[in-house]
Structure formats: structure tokens, C-alpha cells
């Protein structure tokens, strides 16, 4: 019980920390460290809360006589060994069912989108390489995920940019593709489905992968300040091209809310000295290790309660 309470507290602490720490983490820590940390952290925190809710639920559901008979444990001993109030356990069970349902639904959506993107990118690539330039006037550049993903750049955008800016653009998109950034986005989305308190982490990870690709592209061009200018110019060029082709309503659909509205932040981050932020990273890691340790402790505690109840059941039935 105590371990379960600690897990709940820690998970709430993580959830409370994410809005405060998430964005500074991706801007002040090297994105190649911050993004995996945030994604893994969200998954750990979501898995911990899920585990604890399931356990608390089981402790109460296990008291229902037919369930106890089926499982072969003593109801009385279980109540004493795992003293979860019935209301709390029932609420935990209900919440667990809802959250697991959400998670499965999200996982299904991710698989569907991935397979669709994979099919599309295979067709776009034909037999060729991962960079595809399409004859389209709309100014667009993005990375399609998939087992065989690809980078799609419109002729319209490419023609409007100078050589240095083009290099920043291709370097950025190749970084997304090569490092499979979409997997971090999927991971955090799954974690948010399992634990809605983490919603803000999804935005931070999306911004984080953009920052990561920016830093990779800056390394390719060799100059972070120049990369910042290239980013700013590309944003302005795209914006003005877009206004010209804005009649199609589908083209004005914003893609990834947070990441896209942070172009200025991304440019500023490139102008600032290259990030480190070791203290922040260590702090977050400590919190995560504590959460998972408490989740494991809570599992052991409740499991021991069940074992005790099983032993009592065996001795009483053997005595009959």
C-alpha cells in the first residue's frame, strides 16, 4: 500500500514537473539526450501508474468470492494483507480499464498511420533514394515515417531558397529520417494516452525532435548562427509562398501545433550557445528511477499479499 502511494505521488510529481521542465529540457539540454529522456520518462511514468492502478484494482476485485475461489486465495487474508479501501480499488480498476482502452486505441491508430505512410513513401520513392522532390508549387518539406520512410520536398520551396538554406532544409529532414524521430513522437503519444496528465510532454517531444534535426543540420553546415538565419529565411519564404497558394483549404491545416509555432524559439536556440544542462537531466532521471523503483516495490508488496492469502486458502481447504 505504501509503495503504491509513493508511486502515485511520484507519478503526480512527474506530471506536475513536465509542464515546467519539458520545454526547458528540450531547449537547454542537448536534444539528442533530452528527447529520448522525455520519451522514456513518459513511458515509464505511464507504465508505473498503469501497473499500480491494475494492482489496486486486483486487490479489490480479488475479494469477490467467485474470483477468490477461482484464484485460490482467502478473502479475509487478502483484505488484511492488502488493505485497499473497496472504493479506491473499484475506482482504480475502472480507471485502469479506461486508460488501457485509450492506449490500445492509440496504438491501433499509430499502426494504421504508419502503414499508410509507409505505403505512400514506398510509392513516392519508386526504386530511388529517400529524398523525393515533387513537382508541386506549394512550399512544403516534410518527412514521411514508415519502415522505408522518405523526405518529401516540393520543387516550389526548393526553387525559392538559396544553396545554404537548401542545405539546412535537406540536412534537417534527413536527420528526422535517419534517426527515426517519429518513434519518439509515437512513444510519447502512447504514454499520453495511458496517462493524460502527461499531455504537455507530447508538445515538448515534438519541439525536441525539431531542435534535434536543427542541430544536426547545423553540424552539416558547420555554423549554428548561419543555420539560425537559414531557418528564419526558410520560414519567411514558405510563409510568403503559402499566402500565394492559400486558396486550397487543406493547405492551411496546421500540422504539429507546438513544433510549428516554435520556429522563433528554434532559431533563438541555435543562436544561443550549444546546450548542455547536465543538472536538469540528472534531476529528471532521478525522479524516473525513483518512480519505477516504487512501482516495482508496490508490485512486490501486493504480490506478497496475494501469496499470503493463497497460503491461508491452501491450509484452510487442506484442513477441511
Amino acid at each position: 500500500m505504501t509503495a503504491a502511494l509513493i508511486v502515485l505521488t511520484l507519478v503526480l510529481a512527474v506530471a506536475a514537473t513536465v509542464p515546467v521542465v519539458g520545454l526547458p529540457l528540450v531547449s537547454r539540454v542537448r536534444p539528442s539526450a533530452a528527447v529520448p529522456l522525455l520519451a522514456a520518462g513518459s513511458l515509464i511514468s505511464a507504465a508505473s501508474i498503469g501497473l499500480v492502478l491494475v494492482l489496486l484494482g486486483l486487490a479489490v476485485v480479488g475479494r469477490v468470492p467467485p474470483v477468490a475461489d477461482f484464484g485460490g486465495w482467502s478473502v479475509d487474508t487478502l483484505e488484511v494483507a492488502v488493505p485497499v479501501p473497496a472504493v479506491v480499488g473499484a475506482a482504480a480498476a475502472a480507471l485502469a480499464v479506461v486508460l488501457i482502452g485509450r492506449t490500445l486505441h492509440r496504438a491501433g491508430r499509430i499502426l494504421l498511420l504508419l502503414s499508410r505512410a509507409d505505403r505512400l513513401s514506398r510509392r513516392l520513392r519508386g526504386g530511388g533514394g529517400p529524398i523525393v522532390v515533387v513537382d508541386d508549387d506549394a512550399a512544403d518539406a516534410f518527412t514521411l515515417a514508415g519502415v522505408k520512410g522518405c523526405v518529401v520536398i516540393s520543387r516550389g520551396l526548393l526553387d525559392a531558397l538559396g544553396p545554404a538554406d537548401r542545405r539546412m532544409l535537406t540536412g534537417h529532414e534527413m536527420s528526422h529520417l535517419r534517426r527515426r524521430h517519429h518513434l519518439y513522437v509515437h512513444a510519447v503519444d502512447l504514454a499520453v494516452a495511458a496517462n493524460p496528465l502527461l499531455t504537455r510532454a507530447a508538445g515538448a517531444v515534438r519541439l525536441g525532435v525539431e531542435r534535434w534535426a536543427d542541430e544536426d543540420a547545423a553540424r552539416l553546415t558547420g555554423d549554428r548562427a548561419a543555420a539560425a538565419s537559414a531557418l528564419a529565411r526558410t520560414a519567411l519564404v514558405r510563409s510568403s509562398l503559402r499566402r500565394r497558394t492559400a486558396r486550397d483549404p487543406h493547405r492551411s491545416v496546421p500540422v504539429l501545433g507546438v513544433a510549428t509555432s516554435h520556429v522563433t524559439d528554434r532559431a533563438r536556440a541555435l543562436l544561443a550557445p550549444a546546450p548542455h544542462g547536465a543538472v536538469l537531466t540528472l534531476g529528471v532521471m532521478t525522479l524516473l528511477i525513483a518512480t519505477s523503483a516504487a512501482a516495482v516495490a508496490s508490485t512486490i508488496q501486493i504480490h506478497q499479499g496475494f501469496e499470503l492469502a493463497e497460503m491461508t486458502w491452501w491450509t484452510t481447504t487442506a484442513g477441511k
Partner: protein
Amino acid sequence: MGISGRRPELGRLESAVLAVVAASAEPLTVTRVQAELPGDPAYTTVMSTLARLAQKGALRRVRDGRAYLYELAAPAGSIDDALTARQMRRLLGEGGDHAAVLARFVAELDDADERLLTDLLARGGRPETGGPE
């Protein structure tokens, strides 16, 4: 899938080379690619990377006198660009659920963003001093 097998599709140098060639408006020589790459890779390394990418179908090799030039290979077969564009937009616009497609390089800017970026460029990309932070 043939040659790519189960290994990661592109190595670090391969993707850097590909990014450089894709960013160029005209076909590039090995020397040009080598000059544009960070960290001074050896000429022979760049040459074999380019050859490998050409073999994989990512680049096309064209002969120019005695040297080879490299450019991005156009996708094989003719894609119906209008259809593809429509499909891409559907995928991008899908009910707020765009995990499968990463963010566009940059997207909508509001007026404030535009002013800030213009300002940033006007200062020649120097870090601001005494800003709001």
C-alpha cells in the same frame, strides 16, 4: 528490398552526402561534395559513398568528360503528382493525428513570428542582447 537488407538504410555519412547533393541546384563532382561536407572526409571515402548511393538508386551518375557528376535520382516511373499531393495532404491533415508524418520543416507563422524572424535576420543572426528574458 534487396541490397539494403536489414541494416539501417543510411549511414551517417551517406545521409550527409545525400543532403548535400539534394541541396544543390546542379549535379556535383566528388570534389564539390567533399568540400561541402563537414569534418574533412577523405576524397576516396566520399567517392565510394557517392558510388554506393548511386548503386542504391538514390543518386544518378552522369558523365562529364572524364569526371562523374552526381545528382538526385528522379523517382522511377511517373507518379501522378496531383494524386500524390492530395494523398499527402490528407495524411498531413488527418484529424489532429499526425504522428506518422513529422512536422513540416516550418509551418504557419503568425504576424508576430514574422516580425521576430525578420528582425533576427536584420541583426545578421547575432544573438539578441537585453531581450525580454
